[in-house]
């Protein structure tokens, strides 16, 4: 805590801030810590009568909150998410064109209609067959022509590829698609 104390009290270049940056995991945590560093560079001390302005307090509190969320998020992240935006969710309704019940990831291919009525082809990655079986799936859960809803995380690139979080069948039954089941 001595380092954090100095972060708000001493003038640049704030060498004690380095441990704060180092203890944050992942790029978001390090960005947040770096943001705190530069905010401290700009608002480096209380005013002449020893009071912190409201803006200053709000700014530091917001950055602290960002740091909390960044560190907590990276702490729980455990699935390969390099290609996918694991913080966003997309819901797509459409018709199954192919269902590949294979390792390492079951794949679902689906045609959906966009706002203009054009057909958009989606490819969906899920867990492996064994993990899906443990969540109520089987190799005949889907077949071409089925109307379903896919809920998942989209590719960061904008390509119509997602990693599935949940499948909703035409009868309303929901099937989870977690990669790790406990």
């Amino acid at each position: 805590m001595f380092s954090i104390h100095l972060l708000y009290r001493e003038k640049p270049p704030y060498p004690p801030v380095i441990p704060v940056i180092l203890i944050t995991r992942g790029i978001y945590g390090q960005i947040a810590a770096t943001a705190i560093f530069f905010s401290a560079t700009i608002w480096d001390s209380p005013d002449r009568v020893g009071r912190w302005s409201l803006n200053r307090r709000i700014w530091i509190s917001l950055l602290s909150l960002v740091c909390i969320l960044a560190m907590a998020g990276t702490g729980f992240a455990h699935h390969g998410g390099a290609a996918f935006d694991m913080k966003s969710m997309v819901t797509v309704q459409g018709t199954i064109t192919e269902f590949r019940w294979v390792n390492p990831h079951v794949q679902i291919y689906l045609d959906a209609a966009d706002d203009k009525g054009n057909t958009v082809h989606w490819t969906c990655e899920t867990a492996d067959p064994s993990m899906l079986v443990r969540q109520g799936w089987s190799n005949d859960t889907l077949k071409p022509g089925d109307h379903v809803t896919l809920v998942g995380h989209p590719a960061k690139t904008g390509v119509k590829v997602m990693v599935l979080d949940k499948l909703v069948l035409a009868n309303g039954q929901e099937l989870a698609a977690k990669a790790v089941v406990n």
Partner: protein
Amino acid sequence: MKKPFVSCVVTLLAASACCSGAHAQTSSPAPGQPADAKPAAAPFSPRDLDGIWMPISGPAGGPQIVDPNTHPPFTPWAKARFDASFPSLGPRDVAGKENDPILQCYPDGMPKQLGSPHPFEIFMLPDRMLTIFEKDHDWRYVWTDGKKHNAGEGPTYDGHSTGRWDGDTFVVDSVDFNDIPWLDYFGDPHSDAMHLTEYYKRVNHDTLSISVTIDDPKAYTAVWVGKPHLYKLEPDWDILNYYCTIDDIKQYDKDVRIPGGAAGTGEAAKSK
């Protein structure tokens, strides 16, 4: 003047508490001895490791048998290997260009297999421990009949293993590895000189703890002492089929991994 500062300190303390909760297993003091494992009411024998076990919490908060953030300094050999890796997880992940050998159906090997998010079943037999891993339907003997490490069988992905009880901790000693698999999903390598030690400790009826130490002087300048990875007993599960085939991998790469991860490479545009 002090109140805003106190507020910041309290906030950051909360952040620290939040993170320590997320990484609770990393604070355990000794191999195989997680401090925060909750006792279960059901009776158990600490020397009974039989059953199907599913990874639930790794030292890095994910599917890793070691915490990649804690590896000892690399040797130049390992640094070159590490720099040539393109992981699928972690701060160096490269979407669409990953080159983890498992993505080409190479076995995880030991100890990476122990962190893979798939169950395995342990059978304690009179002369060996047999482990059947669901991923790749890999199986492994750990000899307990006094057998010594054999020369000339390897190098292999799982190495040659012998085991013994040290109190209620089952200690596995393995050598004779090849250097193809990574140790973790972040690209940390190991060499054919790796000496792996695993510590199995049944914490309660429902929980198994495994930690490892890696002594690999060709790759690391010090012994890598791991922290416990926890596993949950799944009495109602079966070990199911999981085989990796190169044709399925290629189809997955073509339809999902390459187009989904082609940010900055232009490969998505080329394939569409």
